[in-house]
């Protein structure tokens, strides 16, 4: 059980590295909101972005933040601490309506997807370009993100 978001963030970072590689940015600023993690993959010059908003509680605020990340991401996820995920599950239609991913995560690094969104084109061309140019020089290795979208 996490007691702070910082603890949750540390564990989630380990989970990301182990399962998807180290091609991510942490608390990336200068976008629309500050996502906890921005994960990226590059295939044939095509860049895909997945943003994650981690929260111990307050799913609604997290959803509003995640929606902002759709300005520059193909996929945006709210990741809630497992113990507080029920309230969000009870409102899963909101995540479906706005095409926002929902997952729960616990201190054993168990990541369970509760709603898998469709990948979509980011809303803002400017912000997309901005983040693509930030990561274009990166040679970090990544894995497929196919499991994160439907």
């Amino acid at each position, binding site marked *: 059980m996490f007691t702070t978001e910082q603890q949750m963030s540390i564990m989630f970072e380990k989970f990301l590295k182990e399962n998807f590689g180290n091609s991510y940015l942490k608390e990336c600023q200068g976008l629309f909101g500050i996502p906890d993690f921005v994960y990226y993959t590059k295939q044939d010059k095509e860049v895909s972005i997945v943003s994650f908003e981690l929260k111990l509680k307050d799913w609604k605020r997290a959803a*509003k933040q995640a*929606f902002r990340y759709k300005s520059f991401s193909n996929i945006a996820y709210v990741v809630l601490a497992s113990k507080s995920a029920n309230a969000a599950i009870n409102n899963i239609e909101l995540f479906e309506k*706005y095409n926002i991913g929902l997952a729960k995560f616990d201190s054993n690094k168990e990541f369970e997807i509760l709603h898998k969104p469709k990948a979509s084109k980011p*809303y803002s061309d400017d*912000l997309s370009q901005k983040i693509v140019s930030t990561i274009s020089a990166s040679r970090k290795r990544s894995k497929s993100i196919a499991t994160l979208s439907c």
Partner: protein
Amino acid sequence: MKVFHQTGYRDKWNIESYQKGVGDGLVFSPVNIDADKLLALDESIKKTGFLDPQLYLLNEPKGTLHTYPYFPGNLKPDFTTPDLDDSHIHLAKLCIDFQLQNKFQYLVIPTRYFEDYPSSYFVQSTDYFVTPFCDYLFKKSIDKKVLLSVIVKSIMLSDEEKRNEVLNWITGHQGIDGVYLIFENNFSSKQIKDFEYLLNALKFIKILKDNEMEVHIGYCNTEALLYSIAMPDSITVGSYENLRSFGIKRFQDSENGPMRSPNARLYSTKLLQWVEYQYIQAMKKLIPDYEKFFDDSEFKPLMFTPDFKWHFNKSEPYKHYFFVFNNQIKQLPHSQIERIEMLKGSIKNALKLFTDIENVVLLNDDSNGSHLSTWFNVINAFKKELSLE
């Protein structure tokens, strides 16, 4: 009801808009415009406005404030409150002479700012500012209208005793025609959503009007529309957020420290809300006729081109706001009850539009019109107050 431009940094945008017929005058800001530059400004720009003397902090030479002859630090280095005992008459003379030299429409008596107002505040304000200013005006036989600056802190609205004290003080002077009223804003949200605060602000304005005082409200954001139902004489429009919400930081040197740039926003008269431009990008992708939510102006075509680089330092969103908000204010009926009903109708319409938008775009609490239900309730409560009399 008049619309004044609350000028500050980038006052050029306000002046340009005013010269194009937007607004009724300008409130000049000494921390942002050099005294000589202000003196050199064309009379036509100044004759309908007034000066905010900005003696809020006695010895804080923020920006160009030190270029003003009445700035206390020019009378004595390290000027402090006790120095007012010897200097208040001279300071009043210098401040009035400067205002007269500029031929403003109104003469303004300054006020000081305190985090916690001392018990002697009103006595001191009378002795150091009101009396010497009025005496000098009488001596010079000046027939211009005189406004008294008043900063209204939250406690002065919520605490009835304090509210009565400040109202009694404002209305207890002879030779004062009105008040340059500034509601201090310590709220963290972009829009004020506090029912009690807003209702008490309306009651405060109403009492001043009942006492036949002119009421000019400074540092207004969109809640100027709400204030309008208490029938003030003017409200303000401002560009940056610190001109649409009074905070003492604007007059402290510490404000020069690192600051986070605000996200660019666009005001919509239909939504009664500033909307972050990134949400407009989302609306563009998700709502086919998204432009209908935003007003037309000479700036709109440029702002809605794909190449427009949105940034909080761009002039167009602010000039657009001055133009559309000024029009919105000017369309308000003169009758109080009609004004109330019109505003209620506008709120209902805005809420409906937000429902349409939020079918596809999930807005955050600074863009989603979440202040509007509070506004609606405040209007109803204020209306009830009016009919009780």
